[in-house]
């Protein structure tokens, strides 16, 4: 059922080089239980276990906090409140606003109030129950509408303008308007937030954490302790999933553990129980988006006025960049002509929403895809026809609302191929026939594209470092600034290095990401892990390789072009020796066998003040076609078949890339279907466990799930012409949501575009069907 693209590099495949579908570097250890996560590390002597207590009110003033009974509870060694923090008390990642523990103001239901360290996990958690506090409740702002009414934001409202959209709308042949509520999403990384901190002799801290951003954890731990960054070392071997949820929001637990370690002089581990993790950490931003589009008789968009409102929670965190990215993707793959795109960053008394695979892009894209269906229904056209007609094109139709020229648009060709391989039009007919004959069960079909901008929109983050050592047995130690969270980064970077030296992959040893190996790293985020760290590691490898070539040229009296690295061997003129022999000979002749590598992304420029520039090096593209079946009596549905064609440039590892595409698709499908965050009227998260928050289970896997790679090299000069793959596939399942609407629309002969907020739970689907039936009744 799965089709791996044939590699064009058959020899490379046998050696595990770039292009080879080798297994994840930890796979054998993962299946045998040997792969260690933070909570699995051998525990230091005298380890203490920490726990936190969370506020039970969404907004107000903390009038009193009595933890005397906590301090004397069995096993308790230390307590921690904000007053115990010697350094900075605010751990906001980019902007201030995130107190490490409550500072008197209660900002959301679930805010950490204090922490405790005890001899066992159970004692620490039990002790938190002994506290008493008084909070004078304030007015909690819990929704986008409330925040907009109160004009409370975590950042300035931003607008992109290309042309005069309002004039464009006024002169458009037709207009369509709408509003959509897009739900948030809990990350549900299988490994929850955890940090283990070991105090060192110089007052420093060694921090083992499950974080996508070790350098930021280092900075924040140093700052709360009031010590130089150089005394804090952060080590991340792997995460049990991250998805953005451990980009900024892993730091708080490391900081609290470090503060308790400082206070007690003992190692401290803090692991959040799942319900606390789900309650206190931020999620994907819910959005409420509105649009008015003008279009002509053929459905071609003439103007667009789009407003996106992100529900950011109590603090800025990364919300400004996230709402920006929603705005950057409000066009998806379509040319909007005259466009205004406005993004509001709504402050609410909820957990501070944060990075999540796609980083606002998915919520932006949903808006235009919702509108596309509307145009199609209004004109009586198939939605695919309208989508294709509006794609970016040649000169005159290739500039985005933020004035970036799209130079690598492959969507028309990619969609053509998928349309054909998925047999779209024949299935469209078959589904119409089925629906005409089936009174209760209805089917829907949709094909939607994805165009996703690759690069951090904060320009300075687009840099990376790597460190490579060659040892005298020829083995290679590899370190870089990227973190491994399951996405296969370590595997791909090792493949790149093995390719450079032309050695078997097993020669290359990946190692834990550490702030004392490669400093000042960027988060592993924005899909950029391989683009940045792979290129940095490639540069480090090339530095050493160049030294070896220069040495061999001199030592063996050959020209550089007579030297060839060949699968663990090196041909040097007439000499053929093993890679290890060359390395040993180089060592004996005092050649440095260690090098750093560095990379920064070229061509980027962005002027936030004018909303113009080139925030992305390139775009990653894809499209998917989904078929669903719905039950009009219950709203239940099934995803029957999915076909995907996705662009990863020249794949570094087709198995890992397909894994990212399939995994991203299912995760995005969960976001749009069953994953429902629910709060009560007091702002308490009700869906705070996997019993009440439902990510896709194995039975939700489409029985027909065809995934193929669009096999063309990246037109930009990335590492081996590959493309980023982490985030873009998350938006492919927008076709599932569109197919659900298509099935619903079939009950009104496809003439009305049904409203369907997300997540489209069975309840939402049933209500959409009812609402549509009401509209039909009113019309007749």
């Amino acid at each position, binding site marked *: 059922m799965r089709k791996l693209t044939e590699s064009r590099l058959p020899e490379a495949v046998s050696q595990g080089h770039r292009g080879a579908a080798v297994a994840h570097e930890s796979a054998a250890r993962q299946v045998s*239980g040997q792969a260690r996560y933070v909570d699995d590390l051998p525990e230091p002597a005298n380890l203490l276990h920490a726990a936190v207590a969370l506020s039970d009110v969404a907004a107000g003033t903390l009038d009193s906090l009595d933890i005397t009974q906590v301090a004397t509870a069995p096993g308790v060694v230390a307590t921690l409140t904000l007053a115990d923090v010697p350094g900075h008390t605010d751990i906001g990642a980019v902007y201030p606003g995130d107190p490490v523990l409550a500072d008197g103001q209660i900002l959301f239901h679930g805010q950490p109030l204090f922490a405790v360290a005890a001899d066992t996990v159970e004692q620490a958690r039990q002790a938190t129950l002994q506290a008493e506090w008084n909070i004078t409740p304030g007015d909690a702002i819990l929704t986008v509408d409330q925040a907009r009414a109160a004009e409370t934001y975590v950042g300035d409202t931003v607008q992109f303008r290309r042309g005069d959209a309002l004039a464009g709308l006024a002169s458009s042949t037709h207009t369509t308007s709408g509003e959509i509520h897009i739900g948030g999403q809990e990350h549900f990384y299988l490994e929850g937030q955890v940090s283990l901190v070991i105090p060192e002799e110089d007052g420093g801290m060694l921090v083992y954490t499950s974080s996508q951003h070790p350098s930021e954890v280092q900075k924040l731990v140093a700052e709360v302790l009031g010590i130089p960054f150089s005394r804090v070392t952060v080590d991340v071997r792997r995460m049990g999933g991250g998805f953005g949820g451990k980009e900024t929001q892993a730091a708080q637990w490391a900081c609290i553990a470090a503060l308790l370690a400082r206070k007690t002089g003992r190692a401290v581990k803090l692991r959040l129980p799942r319900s606390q993790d789900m309650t206190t950490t931020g999620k994907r931003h819910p959005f409420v988006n509105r649009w008015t589009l003008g279009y002509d008789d053929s459905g071609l968009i003439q103007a667009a006025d789009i407003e996106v409102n992100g529900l950011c929670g109590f603090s800025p965190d990364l919300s400004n960049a996230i709402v920006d990215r929603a705005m950057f993707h409000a066009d998806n793959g379509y040319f909007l002509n005259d466009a205004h795109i406005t993004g509001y960053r709504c402050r609410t008394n909820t957990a501070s929403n944060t990075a999540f695979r796609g980083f606002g892009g998915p919520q932006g894209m949903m808006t235009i895809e919702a509108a596309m269906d509307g145009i199609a229904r209004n004109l009586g056209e198939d939605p695919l026809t309208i989508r294709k007609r509006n794609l970016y094109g040649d000169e005159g139709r290739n500039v985005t609302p933020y004035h970036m020229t799209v130079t690598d648009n492959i969507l028309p060709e990619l969609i053509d191929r998928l349309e054909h391989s998925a047999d779209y039009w024949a299935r469209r007919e078959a589904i119409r026939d089925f629906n005409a004959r089936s009174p209760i069960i209805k089917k829907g079909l949709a094909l939607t594209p994805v165009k996703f901008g690759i690069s951090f929109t904060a320009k300075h983050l687009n840099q990376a470092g790597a460190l490579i050592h060659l040892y005298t047995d020829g083995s290679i130690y590899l370190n870089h600034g990227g973190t491994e969270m399951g996405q296969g980064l370590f595997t791909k970077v090792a493949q790149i290095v093995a390719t450079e030296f032309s050695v078997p992959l097993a020669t290359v040893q990946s190692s834990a990401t550490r702030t004392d190996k490669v400093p000042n790293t960027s988060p592993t985020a924005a899909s950029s892990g391989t683009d940045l760290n792979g290129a940095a590691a490639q540069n480090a490898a090339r530095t050493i390789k160049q030294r070896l070539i220069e040495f061999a040229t001199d030592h063996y009296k050959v020209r550089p072009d007579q030297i060839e690295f060949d699968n663990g061997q090196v041909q040097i003129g007439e000499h053929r020796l093993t890679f290890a022999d060359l390395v040993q000979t180089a060592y004996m002749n005092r050649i440095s066998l260690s090098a750093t590598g560095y990379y920064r992304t070229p061509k980027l420029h962005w002027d936030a003040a004018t909303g113009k520039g080139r925030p992305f090096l390139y775009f990653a593209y894809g499209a998917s076609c989904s078929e669903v079946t719905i039950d009009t009596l219950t*709203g239940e549905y099934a995803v029957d078949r999915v076909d995907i064609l996705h662009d990863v440039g020249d794949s570094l590892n087709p198995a890992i890339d397909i894994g990212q595409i399939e995994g991203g698709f299912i995760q995005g499908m969960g976001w749009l279907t069953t994953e429902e965050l629910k709060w009560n009227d007091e702002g308490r998260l009700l869906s705070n466990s996997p019993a009440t928050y439902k990510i896709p289970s194995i039975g939700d896997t489409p029985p027909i799930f065809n995934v193929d790679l669009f096999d063309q090299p990246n037109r930009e000069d990335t590492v081996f012409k590959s493309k980023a793959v982490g985030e873009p596939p998350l938006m492919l399942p927008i076709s599932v949501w569109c197919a659900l609407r298509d099935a619903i629309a079939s009950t009104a002969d496809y003439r009305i575009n049904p409203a369907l907020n997300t997540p489209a739970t069975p*309840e939402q689907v049933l209500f959409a069907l009812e609402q549509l039936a009401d509209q039909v009744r009113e019309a007749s």
Partner: protein
Amino acid sequence: MTDFLLNRQPVTLAKTDPDLTVLDYLREQAHLTGTKEGCASGDCGACTVVVGELTDQGMRYRSLNSCITFVHSLHGKQLLTVEHLEQAGALHPVQQALVEHHGSQCGFCTPGFVMSLFALYHSDVAPSREAVLTALSGNLCRCTGYRPIIDAGMALLEQRHGDAFSAQIADIEAELRSLETPVLPEETKTDHVVGFWQPRTRQDLAKARAQAPGARYSAGSTDLALEKTQRLANLNALIDLSQVAELNHISVDDKGLHIGAAVSYTDLEPALLTDYPEAREWLERLGSRPIRNRGTLGGNLGNASPIGDTPPLLIALGATATLSNGQTERTLPVSELITGYRQTVLADDEWIDTIHLPRRQPGSQLRAYKISKRFEDDISTVCVVFYLETDSKDTVTCLRAGFGGLAATPLVLADWQDQLIGQHWPTVAVDTISRTLADALAPIDDVRASARYRVQVTANLFRRFHLETTQPDTRTRVHTHGGLDHA
């Protein structure tokens, strides 16, 4: 005293907290950290282990959630963990298959998938995609999207040969037999009774009950253990019902099916589906494979949860339950057992002993509908079960319905169902009857759904039942696999 095999190592636990979970035992005491904690509530499967036990048919391996299983319940069994599968330096076939199919990404859920697949590998189930999905229904993965894991499972089932474990079975059986020392209730006279009782007979159960009047009953502990792991309660006096012979027995006679209260759903499956095959989808959506390996009818009734899935079915089938205190018994309809939110008629010294299902009446119709946000392994938004008997002229002679998720207790709507008696089923006024059904309901909004949805969908499920029993050619289900095929 609890004796079990940890992989191949005999272990004796004395003076261990009664509510110590298998997961905490493994990670904190045995220092085997391959088994992961994902949720500590039995919902994610990262902690899945396999327990081997001697049965009349030989060794049997089953998956369970170690986070909500008490370690003392392992007495006399073999606990298999992920670290043990690799033997003589070679990955087990299930591990190898996951590697080859790229079935792990972050790897945190992987040990749980490995153990569920190991149990599948050692089962006698025929190879099919459904068999793989069912075996892995309790394992969540957030990275892969499952496709490679399904492929690995399919490949395994198609080439199941023996493994190192098959070769060791005789030895393991001998080792387990050597552990088989019955646990007798400890004599105690203090008021504050602490301990874990594991009676083997009804008589010993009565003794344990007398000795530890405050102790909680534990059968599969799939619900009880959450009080410990989620609400931080101390469950320091437990009576384990899972080894009481009389409560683990299923018998069939002409009156019906008699199911011991501690029979697991997995063990109940063949007998239930023989008489009532329409209950298959309902059963497959009840929890997950590891939950069904542990959960019991007695536990589901005893918890008296408004969202339990079994009361609606038992009510619709006209089931009765026998309560016992070891000396006297009483039998009453299941509909009268539950009196309020998590309240039952059980007296302090009583336990739920046996549940009786009537034999199938020829020509009767049963439909067990479960509606939930996610199709598998989810708590019901509503669970609605209809049972219908008609005479030769299609006149309704009996209609019983059980409703879950619609009130503080499982609901019986006697007036509503009685109005249908004597009516001609194919021509009943479906609109009116579904409207009166809706009018009789007053559910609440909660995390799973709104009250409005619950009412609407329940009324619509009556429409579905009528359609399915009068127009069998009309497709009414989105899934065509599992249960009845309505394609």
